[in-house]
């Protein structure tokens, strides 16, 4: 996918995230977000610093336009961008980075992609829930929230991953 096409889809998904944040309150234990997978799918040719800036602006936009706390999504999303290349290297191997290619479900397999999404989601949720509770909620509440939100977030992310990281050989 060309960069302009990717960012058009990216912006649309930000809007989708705003809708999720503002209208899909299933329960307090489930936090639905596709932001980690969006950051994970930013083309690997874009360096970490720029990815972090994109993640920061994305998080801030969602914070500003949704009912959340300003800075919370940005706080949790920037570490995902910072650790993105390491996560890709860990799960998909060095070869993908060396070739400068992006991962996709068809090329890397659903298992690896789900694992990468779960890792990114877990990192995001850990920081988000930790900062959101600000030390005022009990551990069990945060833990249940994390456990419930992780699979839900991965499932929602699965719906958008193929849009953001399509297989170029299709």
């Amino acid at each position, binding site marked *: 996918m060309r960069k302009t096409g990717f960012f058009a889809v990216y912006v649309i998904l930000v809007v989708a995230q705003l809708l999720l944040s503002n209208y899909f309150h299933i329960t307090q234990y489930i936090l639905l977000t596709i932001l980690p997978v969006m950051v994970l799918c930013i083309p690997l040719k874009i360096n970490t610093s720029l990815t972090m800036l994109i993640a920061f602006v994305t998080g801030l936009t969602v914070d500003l336009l949704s009912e959340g706390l300003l800075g919370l999504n940005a706080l949790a999303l920037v570490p995902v961008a*910072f650790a993105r290349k390491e996560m890709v290297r860990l799960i998909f191997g060095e070869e993908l980075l060396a070739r400068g290619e992006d991962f996709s479900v068809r090329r890397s397999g659903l298992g690896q992609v789900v694992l990468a999404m779960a890792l990114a989601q877990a990192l995001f949720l850990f920081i988000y829930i930790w900062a959101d509770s600000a030390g005022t909620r009990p551990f069990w509440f945060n833990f249940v929230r994390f456990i419930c939100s992780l699979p839900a977030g991965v499932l929602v992310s699965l719906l958008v991953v193929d849009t953001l990281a399509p297989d170029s050989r299709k």
Partner: protein
Amino acid sequence: MRNGNSWIQRLVAIAIFILLEIASLNMLRRNAPLQRMWVARAAHGFMGSIWGSSQRIGDYFALKRINAGLAEENAELRRENAQLQDIIHQAKVDTMRYGISRVKGFTYVPCEIRKISRNKQHNYMILDKGREDGIQENSGVITRNGVVGIVESVSEHYCYALSLQNTDISVSARIGEEGATGLLSWDGYSSNGASLREIPLQYKFEKGDTVYTSGHSLVFPPDIPLGVAGDSRVVNGQVNEIKVTLFQDFTALRYVTVAFNNAKKEVEGLAK
């Protein structure tokens, strides 16, 4: 070169990451009271640990200076200790002089033992004071723990005394505050053992009674505690002989006092 660029990029990425996280936290802090307290608490904890660590590092590097100070202080304390030891030494001599109850008619001269024998049947001691210091023959040698000997001969600067651990001498002693008097002499083998002989059978005493100098001999002041009465036996069906454990340990003897009875000649003159 490429490797160098990679490192720079990583450092830049880390710097940007820190900046963005701080910016996020700052926004969070400004917009939510709970998060403000949380961030403040975390920041205080972080700063506390940083200050603590820097303090520990500073303390570590200050050790050399502190060690030098301690070494100097040690040297000063050693000097003070040496001075105090001198003062204590002098005080011991003074204690010997003033620690013993003074009896009217006696002159007391503190002395230090120059030589002492302990492993013979006829033990003796040489003291560092002589005629020039007022020592006279037949003076008593005492400590605060009892009697230790009798001066036998005197030179200008030294005197020779027979030790109580000498089978040739005996001291007039009394058992109890107002008990019978007898002769106390060394038992001949132990470092603090003695026998109180010639106690008439009619006088009652108890094991554990204190034995004092009687003052009848004119050599020693009266009422100096000598030891504690132990087992007794009847000798020849006429008198008691009592074992006495002396207060004075002769193995730890260094400072003594020579007591001279000023009225001795006068009393002896009357007896003639």
